[in-house]
């Protein structure tokens, strides 16, 4: 056992920190730090800068841009990126479809998609969930029927995050409706969002933002070569992909950053003539949050250090469960620091309320999503109870 980072890892951390804080444009990082929505161009620009330096997809196989880093290095990379308010490489590309194609795609698909995916030349979106298939994803109904050299896709997806920006979608579709288990008979297809028969309807979220969509498919023709891996094995790929999704979802660095912002904001707000940062109730709350965060970070380190054989550590459900709770607690903390100012949510010119206080409640409301998507917290508890505790 060893507590401190080795000198090599210290140097690695410095290298990451320096890169992120000097090579990614300040204006993009300021947008993230101010907790404003990041635009498509800003995501693309950032990911291309990272990719050029070999920092967009370090966890991929080396021949497709991976770096063969240790789990600790990946952790440091991610943490420093979040602390520097760098928009992370688009998860749909870097953590989801990229690794799936690298693991299960054929050579032609790898060559066609992986470089473009790493560089965000293709913006991917995830077409898994359907109106009646949320937590119970395997009950999905969108069908793909073989017709000559094409698959013909019909059905509906929902919750498609940033689908309005996407060039391509990776979809789970039912290819064998007769399979006796509903997890069988599902395949993974990829196709352009501008294929004839694809339509998108925006869903407005509680904070007024437009980040998710419904996507409808009407006789969409998809060439046979766009099937990823084997027919009817899509469920296995989905499980592999969702396992990857969960690793990044703890977002320890991002929560740390939020709490450090909360501390300085609490110095700006006065209550009864004294800075709020001197209120023992608030400082005690921050201390507890930080302590939880320390425990989460240490658990994340234990988990990454033990998943070297490629299999997720059983405790990885803890990361999603607690990681989402702490992100939510941090956004709530900032609303409470804003107090009455938090009401001025949609003010623009002519308001004396600082920007951070205006975005506080919309962000808090928006962050209710993190305990719902990517396998809801109830699903994580079910995994802990069933798979880990054998209940």
């Amino acid at each position: 056992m060893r507590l401190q980072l080795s000198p090599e890892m210290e140097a690695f951390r410095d290298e990451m920190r320096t890169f992120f804080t000097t090579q990614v444009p300040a204006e993009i990082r300021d947008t993230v730090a101010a907790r404003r929505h990041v635009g498509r161009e800003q995501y693309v620009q950032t990911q291309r800068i990272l990719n050029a330096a070999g920092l967009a997809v370090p966890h991929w196989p080396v021949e497709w841009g991976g770096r063969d880093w240790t789990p600790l290095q990946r952790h440091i990379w991610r943490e420093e990126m979040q602390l520097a308010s760098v928009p992370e490489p688009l998860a749909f590309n870097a953590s989801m479809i990229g690794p799936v194609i690298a693991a299960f795609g054929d050579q032609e698909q790898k060559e066609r998609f992986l470089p473009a995916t790493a560089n965000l030349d293709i913006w991917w979106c995830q077409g898994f969930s359907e109106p009646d298939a949320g937590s119970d994803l395997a009950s999905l109904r969108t069908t793909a029927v073989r017709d000559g050299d094409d698959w013909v896709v019909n059905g509906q997806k929902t919750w498609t995050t940033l689908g309005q920006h996407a060039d391509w979608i990776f979809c789970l579709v039912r290819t064998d409706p007769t399979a006796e288990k509903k997890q069988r008979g599902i395949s993974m297809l990829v196709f352009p969002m501008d294929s004839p028969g694809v339509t998108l309807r925006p869903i407005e979220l509680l904070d007024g933002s437009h980040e998710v969509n419904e996507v409808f498919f009407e006789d969409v023709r998809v060439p046979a070569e766009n099937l990823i891996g084997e027919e009817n094995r899509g469920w296995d790929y989905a499980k592999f992909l969702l396992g990857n999704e969960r690793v990044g979802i703890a977002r320890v660095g991002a929560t740390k950053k939020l709490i450090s912002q909360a501390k300085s904001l609490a110095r700006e707000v006065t209550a009864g003539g004294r800075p709020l940062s001197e209120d023992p109730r608030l400082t005690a709350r921050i201390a507890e949050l930080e302590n939880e965060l320390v425990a989460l970070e240490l658990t994340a380190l234990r988990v990454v250090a033990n998943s070297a054989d490629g299999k997720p550590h059983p405790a990885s459900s803890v990361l999603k469960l607690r990681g989402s709770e702490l992100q939510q607690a941090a956004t709530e903390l900032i609303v409470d620091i804003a107090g009455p100012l938090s009401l001025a949510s949609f003010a623009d010119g002519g308001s004396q309320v600082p920007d951070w206080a205006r975005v506080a409640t919309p962000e808090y409301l928006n962050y209710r999503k993190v305990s719902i998507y990517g396998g809801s917290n109830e699903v994580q508890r079910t995994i802990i109870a069933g798979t880990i505790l054998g209940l």
Partner: protein
Amino acid sequence: MDFQYDSEQNDLREAVRGLLQRAYGDPEARRRTVATDPGFDEKTWARLAEMGVLGLPFAEDDGGMGAGPIEVGIVAEEIGRVLAPEPFVEAVVLAGGLVAAVGTAAQRQAVLGPLSEGASVLALAHAEPGTRWSPSASGVTATEDGGTWRLTGVKEPVLNGARADVLVVSAVVGDGTALFLVRGDAEGLTRTGYRTHDGGRAANVTLTGTPAELLGAGTADRSADVERAQALARIAYGNEAVGAMETALRTTAEYLKTRKQFGVTLNRFQALTFRAADMYVSVELARSTALWASMVADTGGDVVAAGDRVRLQTSRAGRHVGKEAIQLHGGIGVTAEYSIGHYTSRLTAIDHVLGDGDWAAARLAETVDSYPTVDPLGAPYTGAP
């Protein structure tokens, strides 16, 4: 001790519920209303006036109905039940309440009459950027100039500040806080309105030598009156929050009974039904506290302490119920197109208008050492020795 409403109170509830149900029984109607200024429906406001609701707590001589905090609580709960955006607590309980408490007979009639009739919307301009839930003013000052008072400074956020016909403004005079009436069309008054996250409206109100009428006779420090009006509003908001929580809970329970995943409705998962049961516990404890606090106010007890208790209880309950309501709905819970998230948004707003749970707990903590056992039926609440 009796927690039952009498028949008149039940009639009031039925009438208000019927009216608001017609207006906002369909959540789409509320969505349409809050989408455009002033953020509430003037027709519904007028109907509430016709029903006597807007004059409820004011003396009959002042144009009101002469009812009390219990009736106010009934209306507030119904408002919360459908998230009616009409500013009942803000205009009637808070701003109107201060005029009733402090104004001269002439001012009470001049201001509360039109408010009760629905002819004039009132707003309290008291909050200042950088201060938290204080009963005193610090950023707006008043000076007398040839018999006319003039106000200078900034108030924000002022709920319904852009729409209001008359603003009740607090300002520093000497080392105290005085209250003033400012007409919406007064010179030197700039109001910049915007939407709040819960669909309401607030404004930055900037006063630059704005002429104002001193509220009440003389410039005595009115901080205690503001504190009392805020406490009564905290109690009313407690009732409003209970109404909102009640609907959030019912809607969630209904959803669990109809939403199917894994081939069964969600209410087949005990993990979820127990959580709904815990929500119920929170709602009922908050309801008891809100009812009790309304009765304390009605019997002339210590409203400030009762207001703090109800604030603490409904703050905790509102967060619990609001978060769980969204979570148990899954993704649909975070959409603007479905009603449940708006309940959470409103509960979050109520939590930050007049002091959140931590704030109330800190205030209550200051006095825990001054009494041996807590007794909601005795001192300090009844004022008995």
